[in-house]
């Protein structure tokens, strides 16, 4: 492969990345708000992971359903 081809590939790499970046970040933003609007997820509640972090505090989202039943 000569240097010109490599440079061309590099340029495509850049363009691909820039588009990919824009698409991912915007769709992520869209996803975050849509999930909240539809009520499937409440992202803001996760801040409580830091605020209620004693070992005997109830997890914000328990990992196993059985844990929840025990409480």
């Amino acid at each position: 492969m000569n240097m010109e081809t490599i440079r061309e590939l590099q340029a495509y790499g850049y363009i691909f990345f820039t588009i990919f970046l824009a698409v991912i970040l915007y769709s992520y933003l869209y996803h975050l708000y849509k999930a909240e609007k539809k009520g499937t997820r409440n992202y803001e509640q996760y801040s409580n992971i830091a605020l209620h972090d004693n070992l005997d505090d109830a997890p914000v989202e328990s990992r196993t359903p059985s844990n929840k039943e025990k409480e």
Partner: protein
Amino acid sequence: MQANHALNYDYSVAKCFTYATILFGIIGMLIGVVIAYQMAFPDLNYLAGEYGTFGRLRPLHTSGVIFGFLLSGIFATWYYVGQRVLKVSMAESPFLMIVGRLHFWIYMITILAAVVTLFMGIGTSKEYAELEWPLDIAVVVLWVLWGISIFGLIGIRREKTLYISMWYYIATFLGVAMLYLFNNMEVPTYFVAGMGKWYHSVSMYAGTNDAMVQWWYGHNAVAFVFTVPIIAMIYYFLPKESGQPVFSYKLSLLSFWGLMFVYLWAGGHHLLYSTVPDWVQTMGSIFSIILILPSWGSAINMLLTMKGQWGQLKENPLIKFMIFASTFYMLSTLEGPIQAIKSVNALAHFTDWIPGHVHDGTLGWVGFMTMAALYHMAPRMYKRELYSKKLMESQFWIQTTGIVMYFSSMWIAGITQGMMWRATDQYGNLAYSFIDTVTVLIPYYALRATGGLLYLIGFFMFAYNLYKTMTVSKAIEREPQNASPMAA
């Protein structure tokens, strides 16, 4: 949760790393102050024979504060925060306890060996990657142990969702692993030639390629050691200390991916005016400027977390440390992209403005945040209230003065130097010989060193305050929910 009633978070490893943070902080910053004074008063080079010259001490200072002070600070907070946001105690897994202890001891041995070898002048000269190959291997081992500790704890977690701080710790782990491995590729000469010093090695890359790998590492090591883990700290400690939920958790998630996407693309700005094609250099500059967005996303998120609670800034010195840290984060993430603009870079490169910029970030952002984190952890780890609020207040103001003296003198020195190097007389000849551009800076060097000294004094106050907290402070009965208790 009956079964877990007697269970507590296990802070033994976090405590060990806290001591290491203080120890290496003192060593690293003390050497920093010495070399800063050496630039103003060259006679100070002869305090310890060949082991006391600027050349020997400079790598010790950088490695000491980065891999000694800061890294142990990151580990200390990880062994504290990790358990809490995953809601699982290390004591639940004897395996993870062993890994944690082993991690600490291998770390201590490695860093102490690093201090000794750098004093002796054994190193590869690549900035922030000076260690020779046997120590590089030790670093890899301790990094793998840290990885086991992170993913092991995640494996037994109770909290299903990973808190945003965890994201940043994971990114630190992965980023540094990749960068360190590639930049330290070297061939031990003894095993090829069968003679000479057994620990000597030669870089796998030559010349320009070596420079590219080094600055790819140098730039991104700043990302993954100075930025990412400190954001991990502030996303936990600021909300916890103030009792305020993060202003917008969604913004924190978005900033995370923004930072991951953009940071590594900005590396091109270290290669300005080299043989790299123009458009790659320009892309480097552009991405550096885009980088302001995710950085400020996190910083503003932190400032807005305090919305309506600004009174805490007056009452609680810990909040003051953290808010000041995020303000400085905003300043240095604005200053960096400015220096990445090609015409500014032509002036600023190789001058004192660059160390000035680095220290904005390290003293203001990294140093303040790490100390605030340890202050917050101490009452919970030792079950005693913080020893003295007054001492913290004065420490804050002494260190802030130090930082301001540091960066203002280095701004002036850097720009003066850059302008004098290029100044010409009316016939187009260079106006100054090199030594003219050195002697003019000596007052600024003295000012800078004094700024550093103030910061060091503040650090001693920090160490003393923590020491008293651990030993004689009033015991507290139950763990405080938010604001850390402190005696006047």
